[in-house]
């Protein structure tokens, strides 16, 4: 929910940081309304990565020479930045991965293969992104654990009154839930679900891919066990994400990927593993990407996550109002109070692909599809939706262009 005391951010000024906005599409900058899928990158991040490659680049950790030291400082500095972003008790609990998806796979494999078996239950939600759904479904099927879901209501909100029934046979070992739904924008009550999971003796794995870019996150306040996030959704480069994990759990787990860097000693018949976090970072990591991830976090925290949240909240409210005026548009998802900067909708009788195609010709980029949430689409009774999503560089004029574009869609195909 918007914190109305945050400093308002000045999009007009911030937009100057984003080179992609100089690109014109039909005489105007592209109205990029697909930030939930991936965000654009500010100069500050691109400059930092370039400087790193030009002046500080070498492989990390083992080099004795100065260039390798600088590279290691850059890489480990980024770990510190991520730890601060999520308020991790220790930097050792931050593991760099390729993406939020890989972060969750790491937990599903390394924790799941070791801790799940027949008689155990894995719980996910009906609106979960495939990233926090399919790995668990796979590991459940491999280990023989049951796979159950928390259902949603018609507004796309989790039905917490279903929890008792799920807990009935006392078999839940892990609960997997996203902070913010990437399809509907629903802000899920993760603290409550976490407390409930812990009552069952289960752990909770939180997908923060869609939340970390837009609102402050505190793993200690959330009291969760694992939390996944991604760089490319918060102004950072692709190819890097992070997992935070509770130290005691990470220490008990076997590794996931194996190879260089994650070992203490390797022998023909016995191998032992390195300390945290290296135990989970096999091979040459995404070094420059980590540095860029750190720069992106500096960029968004410099603006202020509370300010970003409020800006998006206002834009979303505006978009819901404007779209709500069109009786041939059906909005999915919860009311503005429990919604992040995402608006999914249906244009009566017109397929989302056609909507997005025609909008593109109007210089408006939106996403059409299942948004990697097919079980949710099934629940909503559609194959796909059209989705507009906002970030710090989004402005009200782009919402107007979306609405104008939808009129054109209807005129042409309605």
């Amino acid at each position: 929910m918007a914190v109305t005391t945050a400093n308002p951010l000045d999009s007009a000024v911030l937009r100057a940081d984003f080179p992609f906005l100089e690109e014109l599409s039909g005489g105007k900058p592209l109205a990029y309304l697909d930030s939930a899928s991936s965000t654009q990158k500010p100069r500050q991040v691109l400059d930092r990565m370039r400087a790193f490659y030009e002046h500080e680049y070498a492989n990390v950790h083992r080099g004795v020479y100065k260039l390798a030291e600088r590279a290691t400082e850059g890489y480990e500095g980024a770990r510190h930045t991520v730890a601060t972003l999520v308020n991790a008790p220790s930097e050792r609990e931050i593991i760099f991965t390729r993406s939020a998806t890989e972060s969750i796979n790491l937990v599903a494999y390394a924790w799941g293969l070791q801790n799940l078996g027949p008689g155990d239950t894995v719980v996910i939600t009906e609106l979960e992104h495939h990233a926090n759904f399919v790995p668990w479904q796979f590991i459940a099927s491999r280990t023989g654990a049951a796979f159950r879901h928390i259902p949603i209501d018609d507004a796309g909100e989790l039905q917490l009154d279903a929890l008792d029934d799920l807990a009935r046979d006392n078999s839940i070992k892990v609960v997997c839930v996203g902070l913010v739904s990437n399809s509907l924008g629903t802000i899920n009550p993760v603290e409550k679900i976490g407390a409930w999971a812990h009552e069952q003796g289960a752990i909770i794995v939180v997908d923060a891919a869609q939340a970390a870019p837009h609102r402050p996150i505190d793993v200690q306040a959330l009291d969760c066990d694992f939390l996944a996030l991604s760089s490319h959704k918060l102004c950072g480069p692709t190819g890097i994400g992070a997992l935070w994990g509770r130290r005691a759990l990470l220490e008990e787990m076997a590794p996931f990927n194996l190879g260089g860097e994650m070992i203490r000693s390797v022998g023909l018949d016995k191998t032992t593993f390195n300390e945290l976090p290296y135990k989970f970072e096999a091979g040459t990591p995404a070094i420059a990407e980590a540095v860029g991830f750190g720069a992106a976090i500096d960029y968004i925290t410099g603006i202020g996550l509370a300010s970003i949240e409020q800006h998006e909240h206002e834009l979303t409210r505006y978009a819901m109002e404007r779209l709500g005026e069109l009786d041939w548009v059906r909005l999915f998802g919860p009311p503005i109070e429990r919604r992040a900067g995402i608006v999914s909708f249906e244009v009566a009788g017109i397929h989302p692909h056609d909507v997005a195609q025609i909008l593109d010709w109007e210089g408006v980029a939106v996403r059409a599809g299942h948004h990697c949430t097919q079980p949710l689409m099934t629940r909503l009774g559609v194959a796909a939706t059209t989705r507009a999503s906002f970030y710090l560089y989004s402005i009200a004029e782009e919402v107007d262009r979306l609405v104008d574009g939808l009129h054109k869609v209807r005129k042409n195909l309605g």
Partner: protein
Amino acid sequence: MSEFEQMYREVILDHYKTPRNHGILDPNDAVAEGQNPLCGDEVTVSVRFRDGDIIESVGFEGRGCAISQAATSMLTDLVKGRSAQEVAVMQKEELLDEIGIPLSPVRLKCALLGMGVLKVALHQSKGTPLPEEWGTSSGDISVN
């Protein structure tokens, strides 16, 4: 010609708004369904043969965009009277020529969904070769 008119040609809109051969044949000799993984669209294609493996008629149903619906509709006309074997090795270009519009890789998937599913149906009933992109489903997950 505007971008809209280039892609949503009259013939496309016509097939989209009044699809030919719509509905699942009953009885039928073969039926298959398939999804476009990029957007979740689904199509079901049914076939009836005569004289062994000559396609007598095709009927389809599903949900998808104008391009995928129109392309599948056009396809059902195109393949009538051909043998299963002929259709199994039919080049995508033949259908694309018929459609006659510029398509990006993503929209190409829309246009070719029906053709892929038809080939799966032929494969299942007549053992004809599967198209490349329909051959890698090993490891499907089922849970209880």
